[in-house]
């Protein structure tokens, strides 16, 4: 009885090793790139960061100093409004798709949601420009609508995914108890999905807050002070980073790095926690 295998098996084992090695190297490379990106941004941006940088108005052109407070406020407003628009609509679409739609209608709407998801964000920018800006002054509303179109399919898909995780058997269980449809959806299905919807929304926020293209035509020409009125163009982080990055001035580059660091920290922290929570939810719900 020889359980050690023959020459052939030894060769197969070497191939196996090689394949496993390459996959591992690829994964390491990805992690390495992330590390380099984060590290270089942190290295260059950390020096500029200060309390003043976070709380002051934007610098005058060509002047040193200044801060990014208007950008933080503007981005928060833009994303907040976008979330308020996208979240309810997205949840409703997801509920329709998962609970009511007939296969045909469902497939059509699903396709539209997927197309929205794959839509280049610059097109959304162009669309919003054509719809809300062309012929008007730039304004925050338009930017928020653009971001909400970015968020809509993300939240929809996330919601759908958790709704799908709620087993059919549970809906059947509720219906078999004599509960009506809406009771079942509101009482059993959505509560089970709430956590997932929340994390999905957080992920969408993390994505939207860094989106530049939809804002480019809608709210890219703004003042240097804090602006609370969405009727006006709202200063915001991504567009300003873009502007600074295109600049030739080293101090603008420094500001860009620091702002990028702020944005990056926010995005990484939120999306990482949301992802961890999501992974836990998924595991719990099977």
């Amino acid at each position, binding site marked *: 009885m020889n359980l050690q295998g023959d020459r052939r098996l030894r060769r197969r084992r070497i191939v196996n090793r090689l394949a496993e090695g390459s996959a591992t190297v690829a994964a390491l490379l990805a992690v390495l790139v992330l590390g380099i990106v984060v590290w270089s941004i942190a290295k260059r941006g950390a020096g500029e960061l200060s309390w003043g940088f976070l709380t002051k108005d934007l610098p005058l052109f060509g002047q040193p100093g200044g801060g990014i407070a208007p950008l933080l406020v503007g981005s928060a407003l833009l994303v907040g409004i976008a979330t308020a628009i996208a979240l309810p609509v997205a949840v409703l679409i997801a509920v329709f798709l998962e609970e009511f739609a007939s296969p045909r209608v469902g497939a059509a709407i699903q396709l539209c949601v997927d197309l929205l998801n794959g839509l280049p964000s*610059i097109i959304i920018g162009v669309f919003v420009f054509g719809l809300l800006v062309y012929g008007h002054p730039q304004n925050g509303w338009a930017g928020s609508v653009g971001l909400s179109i970015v968020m809509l399919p993300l939240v929809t898909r996330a919601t759908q995914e958790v709704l799908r995780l709620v087993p059919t058997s549970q809906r059947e269980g509720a219906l078999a108890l004599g509960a009506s449809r809406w009771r079942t959806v509101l009482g059993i299905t959505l509560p089970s999905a709430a956590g997932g919807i929340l994390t999905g929304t957080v992920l969408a926020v993390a994505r939207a807050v860094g989106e530049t293209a939809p804002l480019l035509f809608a709210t890219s020409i703004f003042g240097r002070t804090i602006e609370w009125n969405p009727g006006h163009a709202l200063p915001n982080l991504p567009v300003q980073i*873009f502007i600074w990055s295109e600049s030739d001035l080293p101090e603008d580059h420094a500001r860009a790095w620091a702002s990028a660091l702020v944005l990056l920290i926010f995005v990484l922290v939120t999306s990482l926690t949301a992802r961890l929570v999501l992974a836990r939810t998924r595991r719990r719900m099977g």
Partner: protein
Amino acid sequence: MSAVPMTQELRGGRRLRDRFGDRLLLIVTSAAGLGAVVLIGFIAYKVIRGAHLALSTFGLPFVWHTAWDTNKNVFGAAPGLYGTAVTSLIALLIATPLALGIALFLSELAPRSLRLVVGSLVETLAAIPSVVLGLWGILVLGPFLADHVEPWLHNSFGFLPIFSGTPQSSGIFVAGVILAIMVVPIVASVCRELFLSVPPELEEGALALGATRWEMVRGVVLSSSRPGIGAAVILGLGRALGEAIAVTQVIGAGWFIRSSLFAPGDTLASRIAGQYQGAVSKLQIASLFYLAAILLVIGLLTNLLAQIVVKRFAFQRTGGS
């Protein structure tokens, strides 16, 4: 326990609220669903509507004309199409094998404890805003490639026209690499989901037949997810085609077609993004809308393609036969 039922009650009565609630929920949600359809249509309409002037002025030849002259008011899309195609191609060539490796590592090889960590890190790479990545690309990656990688490529493969020309810190090649970095996590995470969705029973089945892990992966995991991998790559392609900001930052802007990859260039998206402030004439704006329309069509087509592939794939998985 209740006695013989009162037949009346079977016919509802107090259930008015239930019926009303059901109706209401159905109406509201289906309205929202309809909204998604309307939105897509509206976007297409608006974009094409905006391009109306350019469409009527240049017609279809716009697509293969190369000029972008604001003074003479002649515009064409060809250089952008070329740039889009080449940058996307570079991105996919780099990203696909890497993404597959990562996905395999995450789904089949890594110990469970490492999976979550590495997986989250890879997804985090996708979460980096493109403007930030572009900033890094223009200030860190571009110079690095220009100093180290491009000269090596030039020296080794300079006989190929694509590697001729002088290395530069911004240009098509750098844009391609940045796009690759953006695409890798997308393709990797879709593929990982795909691999994870290969039922563990199948994998056990292969191992129980005396296959090595790699043979199992090749014979069961990869082969059963091949169409899905195709769809994932197409999804990545969609992302690469449409990415505007980061590309704008690193591509160096140039509306011409050069054989060298090191030369600056433009993609459809980067041209639109790059001209956001400078547009002077209505025709120029309409031409930008025209570019957007082309991009929209390409984007929709790739997405549709991905959908179709996935459909076929689902069909194959469930064995409709």
